[in-house]
């Protein structure tokens, strides 16, 4: 069989077509998410600025709208400094792991009916696994930098992620019980029968636990101990500069977007809304995700950082019992009703 026959064999064409479609989908998703990441940094500075009665970026372009492009250009052309005593292979690979874990979570998120890169049956599990993989990037960068500040940041992060992973996983169990599936598309469809097409009312406890755990999972204020600017300079990525720093930064913001997507899909009904918005199937998801991202900024502008023992206490003594209570109640109702 010649090369062309192999390519144009009846089954092969389908496979190639599928691969092509998947590649296009990946390109679209990554492109859109990267654009959102760039402008998430801009709007974060803008929103927090206005909350602190400042203006935020104003110089680059109209009201600073070109700021992310300027930032990216600057980071791209900056010198890539590697500390002399750094563990080089690990130092190189850590930001890549962080970004990779964050980006691969995007594969299972359904943006609207039928648009998902990989319609995985274990979507939630996959996202949880990827978010804990991201912690490896943090721990490795903290270790490889050979600096006490980044090491402390890495340690704090690993402890924090392990603690809050549990609470986050448990808070999603209620959703899984109600939907009877771990597939995110199925979860959205299961919510259509509920008031406002959302799980938020029966699962308010799970929603609360999930939101708090998501803040901790993405290392955002008030749980930003791994990168506590005022005590650890920048935490685990102090020693990184230029593009490697940008990779960590992008991973953090993609993590935020994923958590916002997950909250919208699992608790607020994903692409379904109280009424239909014509021609824009992803409009409701976008609105919900923007709200959650705004919430991240809003909380960052308001709430001071938790102390380390308070953080651990909240995770283990409050959130996990609450999540367990939620599972028990949801399970009992599911059995009895």
């Amino acid at each position, binding site marked *: 069989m010649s090369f062309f026959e192999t390519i144009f064999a009846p089954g092969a064409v389908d496979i190639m077509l599928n691969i092509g479609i998947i590649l296009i989908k990946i390109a679209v998703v990554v492109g859109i998410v990267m654009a959102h990441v760039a402008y998430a940094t801009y709007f974060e500075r803008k929103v927090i600025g*206005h909350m602190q*009665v400042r203006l935020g970026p104003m110089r680059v372009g109209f009201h600073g709208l070109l700021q992310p492009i300027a930032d990216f250009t600057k980071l791209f052309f900056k010198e890539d400094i590697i500390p002399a005593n750094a563990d080089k292979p690990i130092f190189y690979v850590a930001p890549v792991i962080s970004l990779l874990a964050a980006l691969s979570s995007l594969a299972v998120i359904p943006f609207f009916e039928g648009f998902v890169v990989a319609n995985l049956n274990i979507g939630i599990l996959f996202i949880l696994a990827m978010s804990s993989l991201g912690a490896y990037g943090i721990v490795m960068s903290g270790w490889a930098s050979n600096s006490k500040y980044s090491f402390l940041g890495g340690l704090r992060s690993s402890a924090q992620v392990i603690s809050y992973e549990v609470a986050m996983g448990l808070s999603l169990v209620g959703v899984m019980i109600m939907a009877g599936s771990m597939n995110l598309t199925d979860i959205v469809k299961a919510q259509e029968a509920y008031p406002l097409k959302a799980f938020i009312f029966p699962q308010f406890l799970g929603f609360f636990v999930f939101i708090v755990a998501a803040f901790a999972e993405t290392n955002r204020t008030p749980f930003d101990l791994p990168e506590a600017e005022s005590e650890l300079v920048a935490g685990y990525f102090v020693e990184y500069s230029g593009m490697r720093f940008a990779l960590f930064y992008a991973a953090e913001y993609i993590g935020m977007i994923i958590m916002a997507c997950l909250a919208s899909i699992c608790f607020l009904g994903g692409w379904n809304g109280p009424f239909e918005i014509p021609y824009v199937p992803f409009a409701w998801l976008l609105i919900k995700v923007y709200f959650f991202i705004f919430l991240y900024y809003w909380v960052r502008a308001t709430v001071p950082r938790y102390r380390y023992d308070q953080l651990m206490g909240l995770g283990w003594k409050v959130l996990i019992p609450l999540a367990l209570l939620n599972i028990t109640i949801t399970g009992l109702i599911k059995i009895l009703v």
Partner: protein
Amino acid sequence: MNVKKIIKTVFFTEIIKGMALTLKSMFTHAVTRQYPEEKRPAMPGFRGMHAFVRDPETGREKCIACGLCAAICPSQCIYIYTSEGPDNKKVAERYEIEVLRCIYCAFCVEACPVGAIALTEHFEYSDYSRDALYMDKERLLSNWDKYMAGPRGEEYFKKFWHPVSADFQAYDGQPVFKRG
């Protein structure tokens, strides 16, 4: 823990209060002043770049080369070289201020018996070389023409730089500084 405190903890009353405050302040006007575009007007009595007051009668400086400004200057940045001018008067042949060393205390203005030196409202004079900020007599006079000439200078003179000796009534025979 009483009931009130439990309710407060469970419903995050305080955090919600704080969030309401930040949301509210998000929609208030920012206090930032966009400096190069939005300039703040100089307050009266502002002490900026130095100038030599140009005497409207003679069209030259009022300086009588007494050297009091140089003597009182805390940072010693005024240099005066005197010589004998026409009709045996003492004149400042060179009068130079090293602006980079000046601390803008305006002691020179206070010390001047004839009100010859002034501090203008001009403060944006950064430059790339030291020479550009080394003022000689001609540049000091041109500073006056640029920033203080006309009614503004007169008003400043009345309010802030009026020499103390001008109101001072001396008895006969007491040595005083006089122009002319």
